[in-house]
Structure formats: C-alpha cells, structure tokens
C-alpha cells in the first residue's frame, strides 16, 4: 500500500536530497521559502525573527528528512516545524503575553446598532495608497492577536491548511481550531473596522 502523501515533485526532490543533491535542497528551499518567511513575519512581526524561523525550519527539516516517511505532505511537515519554532521563540522572548478572547466580548451590546467598516479591495490604481494603508492595518491587527489565535489564523486562513491539518500540526482538537479561528476573525474584523471608523471612514 502506497502511503506516500507528498506530491510528485516533492517526492522526487526528497529522494534526490537523500542521495546528496545540493540542487534538490535548493529547489525545496525555493518552493517554500517565501511562504515560511511570511508565516514567520506574521507570527513574530520582525524581519530578523522571520529569518530565524525560516532558517530554523529548514535546518531542522533537512536534518530530519532522512527519517521523513512522507506520510504527510512536505508542506504540512515544514509548517509543523515552523509552528513549533515560533512557539519556542515566543517562550524565549516572551514578547507577547497570553490572553483569552472570550466569544462574549464580541457580542454587540443590547440595543447597539453595530456596523463594521471593512474596506473593499479594488484594482483601481488610484487606490494604491489605500491598499498600502490597508496592508499595514491588517499586518498590525494580525500581529496584535494573542499567539494561540494568531497561529491558527495564519495556518487556516493565510496558508490554507484545513481544520484537520491544522489540528494535526498543532496537536489540538478540531473544536479548538474552529473556536480559535472564529475568535481570531472576529478580533480582526473589529480591529480593522475600528481603524477605519476612527479614521473618519476613508475606506
């Protein structure tokens, strides 16, 4: 029974790397460096930290590749390593305290008429400045998420892993993934909307 879950390209590159091909290693890096770098940046907020995360991930991945049986996709395996690298970095630096986001905190107050101002993305070149501002607003909002919610949000919404994949990578339950994702999204909606409301609704 074929248990290999990596795609054909990754499988070929892994096989070549195991035989000593530096080109295969470089191709694997090229396939995943941008995603891993951006993941590290969204998790940690600083270029240096993103570089550390990416480097640690690849170092650990290539060290462990001899024993990698390809029962999961290479991408999933790399991001599992990256997620744990982020958690280790956080434990060392303690740069963001843990806090809970209770669901009740997002419920509108009784009688309140709540409207969320979420800007429309447009391909209009004249709105380049607005898109640039929006990117900063989103980046700041994601960065300010408490770590456990940020991790799930980044894996699910930004990297496109499924609920099952995310649960497996982080060693948490499916329900925990769903709960954390929902609260992360509510938090981000509020954060982004508050910026544009405070800004006089320029969006």
């Amino acid at each position: 029974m074929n248990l290999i879950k990596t795609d054909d390209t990754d499988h070929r590159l892994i096989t070549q790397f195991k035989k000593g091909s530096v080109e295969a290693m470089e191709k694997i890096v090229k396939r995943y460096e941008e995603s891993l770098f951006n993941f590290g940046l969204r998790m940690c907020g600083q270029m240096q930290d993103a570089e550390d995360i990416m480097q640690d991930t690849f170092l650990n991945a290539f060290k462990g590749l001899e024993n990698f049986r390809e029962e999961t996709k290479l991408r999933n395996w790399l991001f599992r390593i990256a997620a744990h690298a982020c958690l280790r970095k956080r434990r060392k630096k303690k740069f963001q305290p843990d806090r809970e986001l209770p669901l009740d905190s997002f419920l509108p107050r009784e009688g309140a008429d709540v409207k969320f101002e979420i800007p429309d993305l447009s391909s209009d070149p004249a709105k380049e400045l607005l898109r640039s501002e929006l990117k900063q607003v989103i980046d700041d909002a994601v960065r300010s998420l408490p770590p456990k919610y940020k991790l799930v949000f980044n894996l699910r919404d930004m990297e496109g892993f499924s609920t099952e994949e995310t649960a497996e990578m982080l060693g948490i339950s499916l329900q925990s993934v769903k709960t954390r994702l929902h609260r992360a999204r509510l938090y981000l909606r509020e954060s982004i909307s508050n910026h544009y409301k405070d800004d006089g609704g320029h969006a």
Partner: protein
Amino acid sequence: MHKECKKYFGKISQYLDGELDAQSCEKIRQHLLACPECRHCVDSLRKTIDICRNMPKEKIPEEIRKNLLQTLRDAFSDKFNPKS
C-alpha cells in the same frame, strides 16, 4: 442581539467554511434571510477573511535568501561532499 442571533453567532465561521451539517446550515441560512443584523455580521466577516487572504506577500530580501542558502550548504556540507 436577539437570543436566536446569539445562538448562531458562534457558528458563523463554520457556516462560512462549509463545516456545518446540512440541517444547521439551513437553519442559519433561513435566519439570515430574516435578520439584516446577522446578514451584516456574516458579510463583514466574509469580507474580513477575504481581504486578509488577498494581502500581497512580502518578498524575502536577497541578503536573507543568500544567507539561508549558505547556512544550509555549510550545515550539510558533509552530505553533499562526503569525505572518502
């Protein structure tokens, strides 16, 4: 927020992600037809998810790319150039 709205509030993400069973999904769908506040809630959450997902990625600075490759080549030099 009405009691019924609160009941569905915690499930909106699962609804948007298609992770609810058919019966729950239909209940929410019917509720949305009748409740403009919840429709706004769902629409604004969907918009939030979309704009986040569509943000452009940062390019890796060339210096960082070069450092990474060199670090990896050095770390695995024995593998690529085995001593005879």
